[in-house]
């Protein structure tokens, strides 16, 4: 197994007052060492839930994991016996960058302190050395050491996100999960931050799970991609393969909805319909109601994973029949 992280058949439910929300319905995902994986999908598809599951950050009161395992090396992160191990691993070997740079930094602590805490926690450094190490880290992301004693609200969104990134890669983690890190930033800053992440990933040799709904970012940054819909991965493979030959109608729809800069378009082509109500466990394929190529069997049975070739897996009956590209 040369997989760094392997998520196997992960089911996640949330108990709410209105009923049970089936957030993840059998997610299979793997990340190798040094690989950058893009996790793509609409809002509500379950991308963040997947990320939080890996980090062990699901809300304890409402989240339930009835089935599945998350293998990190040889340990299952979902196994309660490994709780202590998981806490050690969190922030040290697996780190996360959050979506909203404003709310993910504590407003009453300086950014220096917030990066230093990672060093103190995982590398046992004393305050002084941790602070120095934090300074170096911040410099790496392009923040001058003079600003270490400033507070988050004194920075712009892009800078704050850099702080978040600095804290995340401080201990040179094996895996970095970035949950839509640039969604809250404007386009020019987005480019800068992505550039930074690319550099760092190469320098530090971290594996990356990049969660985003922006296919362009995936193309730029990632080698592999996994497309998520309604709590399942419906297509995955190398970026080249999937982008060149999208096989699931949903993926096709996603690609098709991107306006082509070379063509003159009057109307955008969205995918009609909405994501299904996560409180209902559908029979058959979750995408069936919206699928332009839906067949009878799609509403009866769940399409399992179908390997198109070594770098391409699709969960679709159509793909099985090889008729998806029309």
């Amino acid at each position, binding site marked *: 197994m040369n997989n760094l992280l392997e998520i196997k058949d992960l089911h996640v439910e949330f108990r709410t007052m209105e009923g049970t929300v089936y957030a993840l319905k059998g997610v299979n995902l793997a990340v190798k060492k040094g690989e950058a994986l893009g996790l793509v999908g609409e809002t509500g598809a379950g991308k963040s839930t997947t990320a939080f599951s890996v980090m062990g950050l699901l809300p304890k009161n409402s989240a339930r994991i009835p089935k599945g395992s998350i293998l990190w090396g040889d340990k299952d992160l979902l196994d309660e016996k490994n709780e202590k191990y998981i806490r050690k691993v969190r922030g*040290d070997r697996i780190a996360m960058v959050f979506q909203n740079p404003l709310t993910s*930094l*504590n*407003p009453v602590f300086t950014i220096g302190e917030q990066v230093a*805490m990672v060093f103190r926690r995982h590398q046992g450094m004393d305050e002084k050395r941790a602070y120095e190490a934090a300074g170096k880290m911040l410099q790496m992301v392009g923040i001058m050491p003079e600003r270490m004693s400033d507070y988050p609200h004194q920075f712009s969104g892009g800078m704050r996100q850099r702080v978040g990134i600095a804290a995340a890669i401080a201990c040179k983690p094996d895996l970095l999960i970035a949950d839509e890190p640039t969604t809250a930033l404007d386009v020019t800053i987005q480019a800068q931050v992505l550039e930074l992440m690319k550099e760092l990933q190469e320098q530090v040799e971290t594996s990356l799970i990049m969660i985003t709904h922006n296919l362009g970012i995936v193309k730029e940054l990632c080698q592999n991609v996994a497309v998520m819909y309604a709590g399942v991965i419906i297509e995955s493979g190398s970026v080249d393969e999937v982008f060149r030959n999208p096989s699931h109608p949903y993926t096709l729809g996603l690609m098709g909805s991107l306006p082509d800069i070379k063509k003159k378009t009057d109307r955008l082509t969205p995918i009609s319909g909405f994501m299904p109500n996560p409180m209902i466990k559908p029979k058959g394929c979750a995408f069936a109601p919206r699928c332009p190529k839906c067949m009878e069997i799609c509403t009866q049975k769940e399409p399992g994973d179908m390997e198109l070739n070594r770098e391409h897996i699709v969960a679709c009956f159509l793909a099985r029949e090889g008729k998806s590209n029309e």
Partner: protein
Amino acid sequence: MRKFIMRRLFFSIFVLIGVSLIVFLIIYLAPGDPAQLILGDTATPEQIAQKRAELGLDQPMWKQYLIYIFGVLQGDLGTSLYYNMPCSTIILPMLWNTVILSFSSMLLALLIAIPLGVIAGTRPGSFSDFAATTFSMFGQACSSVWLGLALILIFSVKLGWLPAYGDISLSTLIMPSITLGTPMAALLVRIVRAGMIDTLSEDYILAARAKGEPEFRIVMRYAMKNVMLPVITIVGLNFGAFLGGAVVTEQIFSWNGVGRLMVSSIYSRDYPMVQSCLLLSSFLFVMVTLIVDILYTWVDPRVRLDSGRRKRKIRSMLNNSDVSKQELTVEKGA
């Protein structure tokens, strides 16, 4: 920052002037002629007229007000009709007593409420949360009237452990502090608990967890600092209100404070003293609120270090929460 302080100071002075006006008018609205009160029922009309001239009561109102104000600014709060001494000499030691009581009550309230609130906030829905919330509900309904007497009944009358009144000492301080502090503690438990629940649901706490920080540290260090911010405001506000309003508690325990003084002055129709008590209490309230506002802006880095626009926004937030200031004040017959 300086501008903010200046503005607040100006506002405080303005309010104090308003208060002094009201306080000044009290003597005029009170029944009975002050000169007659001093001289008693046997005074002749000439004597009364003479006394009136002496007290300057035949001057136009606005002149009297100015005289009064000048006097106050120089430390002369009038002469007590009852004690026949300057009010200031009588009041100041009493004020100190009230301060001691307020201080210890607040301290007690904090010592009880903060741990309780933290426990409740970190374990919402649990038994400890239920216990804390119940305490908070009942505590806020506890009036000093009843609580004080109940405590005396139990600890002085039945058990004989604590004295019901006497010179200021630790043993005489306990019961009044509990009486005054319990409603405050109840309120604080609510605030701390709500603040903790809110803070713990913030993204930056999630981020701290993602960094592998243990839960204990997250609560005590990273969450606490945020939770304490509104607590400071409320503690300060109620401290100021304590100073003036612990009237009933002082009465029950025969505590020689400003509240008790005011009540006895009302009975003896010692209006200058009443005036002085009102003025001084309000002054203290204003001072404490001012200090608290400044303290808050210093403690919250968002307010401390930023451009005017943000400060104005936060200040207006603080000012609008003035509304809840009085709402959150635990004066209920304290």
